[in-house]
């Protein structure tokens, strides 16, 4: 397994949980361009089903304000799941208050990024976490 750079044998799998079609298409384009395999969930319910039924990805890029089930609840579910608990989670959200950041990190997020965001920064953080 590698960090997803193009030309390598098994691309790492990243799940993007995001209800904004524009953000989703930007992050998907970024990650595919860097050689990652990308899965997407457009709301909390879809993501919840994936956590219950699907094999864990290598990382999740997780929004907080999602329809049906919010990102913090999904994060708790990920950390409580036997197969998903070690998945890298980066929160990517418009919730920028100090309490939200602390809540995200306390709930088990590996990193927390605030929108508006820089794609190069997101990629760098993701790569760093995947190298651990």
């Amino acid at each position, binding site marked *: 397994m590698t960090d997803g750079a193009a030309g390598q044998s098994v691309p790492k799998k990243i799940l993007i949980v995001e209800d904004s079609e*524009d953000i989703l298409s*930007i992050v998907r384009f970024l990650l595919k361009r860097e050689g990652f395999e990308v899965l997407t969930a457009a709301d909390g319910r879809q993501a919840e089903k994936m956590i219950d039924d699907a094999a864990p990805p290598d990382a999740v890029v997780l929004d907080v304000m999602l329809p049906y089930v919010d990102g913090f609840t999904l994060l708790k579910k990920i950390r409580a799941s036997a197969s998903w608990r070690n998945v890298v989670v980066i929160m990517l959200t418009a919730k920028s208050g100090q309490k939200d950041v602390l809540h995200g990190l306390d709930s088990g997020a590996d990193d927390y990024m605030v929108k508006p965001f820089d794609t190069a920064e997101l990629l760098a953080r993701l790569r760093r976490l995947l190298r651990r």
Partner: protein
Amino acid sequence: MMDIVYRENTDLIVRFALGIGVAALAMTVLMIVSILLMRGLFLSRDRQRQEFMERWRPVFVEALFQPPGAMPLPRGEERLYFLYLFNHYHSLMKGENREQLNRLADAAGIRSFARGLIRKGNMPRRIVASYALGFMKDESVFDALIEGASDENTLLSQAAATAAVQIDPVRAVPLLLPKLLHRADWPVSNIDTLLAMAGEEAVSPVLRESIMNAAEKEAPNLIRLLGSASEEAASACIGYWLERAREGETISACLQMLKDAHYLPLVRSYTKHPTWYLRLQAVATLGRIGHRNDVAMIVGLLADKEWWVRYRAASVLADMPFLTHQEVTAIRDAQTDRYARDVMDTVMMERGR
């Protein structure tokens, strides 16, 4: 003879009624046709806009990562749709991605179109163009934007002021601040957001001068903007007004914005002030900059005669970073005053403890 007169009069009335009926029918048909035409025009424009968005969204996404390639230039109304998308993607991104979006706008020949809208467009178009030119950091429209910030339309004023700050914050802040402070449609929180965007370097000298030279009735609003100034400037302004203030509102604003521990003895003295909202503000300030040895003083305020002071004191105790959960519980258990115990229970319940 009578019969002829009667028949002629009746014919006239019938003809008149018929004429009115036909005219009403024609008007109704005309209205239906114009409603249908307007609806058709609206749907056609909407479809045109949707098609444009679908065609250009992928172009925008690609443009975030690589220099724009050859593309068909947007024409006519499409240039306005381009500006909508441009502003939208700018609001999602930061850093180098924004520079890439600006390269795309230039490659699409949009800059001159937006400049034209600033001068000649209707209100919604001027607003869209103002934001776009701010994102593009277009120096050539700076003066027009400063003028736009004075417009009586609040949305245009906000768009123009935001854009001017994005283009040149150091020039914009001294020009904008005096105008905005006197507008009822610009709440302090909006001015604060604008100043935060401008940054310390642009804000500190202007606020410092304004605060030091302000009449006391103007000082509280200015002091509440100090969150965007440097700590040094904020401390100097607050110190200045704490020495001179006669009004409770001025002192309250100073306490609210205070971050400098140098003033802790003064803050502590305000926990005993006869005015309840100054005691409240003082205890909140102790929560931000106080030491462990201030805990006893804050605990004393749990029995204050004013509920809001008790509640704030309990909140401060519950959130103090150096107090453990056990210590907060012990403070609650040690309260003999019923009101103090109640308010601690309320705050601890709110925090799920």
